[in-house]
């Protein structure tokens, strides 16, 4: 990813807007963009989703393969989550091996899903020590207008919830739906013009500072946190966005449950 030259004018503009409690696209501080979620959109994936948040569009596809369980965990299958942002998604994303930014994206989403325990890895074991399922969740950016993190996390959990284990194709029994017991949801906040906003668009990311990602589970339990980019934030600021995340994750979970 090439780092675009941050125009000083954009930073000044964003900070002027923040002073008037306004945002560059007319939203209020905690207002998210319009969200559209579809599932089962990819014919070759065992579970899939397309999420659109404003002009940010992502795909998630779940695939399964058989693995030998790790020697220290003979009764468990595996879960792997990887993100790739290819040049299709925006002019500043370049070809080549996954950039540090894309790797961070995949790993933060992975932690939220893994640590929530929504997938029971014990249930993925077929023969202890010999054969187990590996779930591979691939996240793919189609259009990056900011906040790929939340879009990826949302598409990821929707793809898993709609996934079917292809047991017949691998000759280990009958196909069955992947059991997903919880719905971890990520909410991301960016420091723009000196204060945090929810669901930043690309221009806010470009002219903003640090970002914080929070993944909460069904009971408001915290499953993953990540601070990214240069910037300093206070305990008060964090407490404010954590409170906001508690409300917002509930709204998003309703969308996921209604599918």
């Amino acid at each position: 990813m090439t780092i675009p030259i941050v125009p000083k004018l954009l930073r000044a503009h964003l900070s002027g807007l923040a002073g008037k409690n306004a945002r560059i696209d007319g939203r209020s501080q905690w207002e998210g963009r319009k969200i559209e979620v579809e599932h089962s959109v990819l014919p070759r994936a065992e579970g899939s989703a397309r999420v659109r948040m404003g002009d940010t569009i992502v795909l998630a596809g779940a695939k399964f393969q058989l693995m030998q369980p790790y020697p220290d965990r003979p009764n468990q299958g595996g879960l792997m989550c990887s993100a790739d942002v290819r040049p299709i998604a925006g002019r500043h994303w370049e070809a080549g091996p996954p950039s540090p930014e894309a790797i961070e994206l995949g790993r933060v989403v992975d932690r939220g899903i893994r640590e929530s325990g929504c997938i029971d890895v014990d249930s993925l074991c077929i023969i202890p020590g010999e054969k187990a399922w590996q779930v591979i969740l691939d996240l793919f950016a189609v259009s990056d207008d900011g906040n790929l993190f939340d879009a990826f996390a949302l598409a990821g959990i929707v793809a898993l919830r709609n996934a079917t284990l292809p047991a017949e194709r691998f000759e280990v029994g009958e196909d069955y739906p992947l059991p997903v017991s919880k719905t971890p949801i990520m909410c991301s906040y960016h420091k723009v013009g000196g204060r945090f906003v929810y669901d930043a668009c690309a221009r806010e990311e470009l002219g903003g500072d640090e970002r914080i990602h929070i993944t909460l589970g069904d009971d408001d339990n915290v499953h993953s946190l990540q601070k990214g980019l240069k910037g300093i934030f206070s305990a008060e600021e964090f407490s404010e966005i954590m409170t906001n995340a508690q409300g917002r994750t509930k709204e998003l979970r309703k969308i996921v449950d209604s599918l």
Partner: protein
Amino acid sequence: MGGYGDMQMIDENGLRVDGRSPGDIRDITIETGVIPVADGSCRMTWGTNEAIVAVYGPMEAHPRKIQRQDRAVLDVAYNMAPFSTTDRMRPGFNRRSREISKVTKDALESVVLLELYPRSKIRVTIEIVSAEAGTRCVGLTAASVALADAGIPMTDLVVSVASGKINDVVVCDLNKEEDNYGEADLPMGILPNSGELVFLQMDGDLSQEEFKEAWQYNMDAAQVVHKMMVEALKRGDSQ
């Protein structure tokens, strides 16, 4: 070609495994403007193939050493998403995708008026998110629609179609089973207004007569697909 000559792929009525006649193409949908942040884009489904293409540019070509003083450089990348195939595709470039990127670039360079944009770069990214058979054809066709959507001047659109042979019958637009077990595959990139070619590959075994028949199937299909491409571009413009 798999060359499983004894696999029955044409029934007693002359119909193919998916019910098509030998000259029929699969269902196609074309949509432009699907990537809001791109200068031009196209989503094309062709059977259960799905390609998404973004065009960025003309923009500054950097580093400067890649710049050409007399024309724009075209940067074309074809890639299959990991979830596009039955068995997960390991991410990253491989020899196949590099070759397809190259021949697609060669085809598009033949129609894009690159000399209008000296020292700049036009980037075309083709992503296959669902693969059946004939992804290079879908990718090239969708790329020409995305370039038109971006307003890049071209001498013509490019329509790419493949015909082939199964059970000694020449058929148009091979599907997955036919591609796996067929005896020949002839993908072509056709300029629909002149009937000229900018892309040609072939592998398998065709007699001179069969070759002519497959060639004609591709030419006829190109006219059908071209109409849909023009309609999609007009629809996109009116939105």
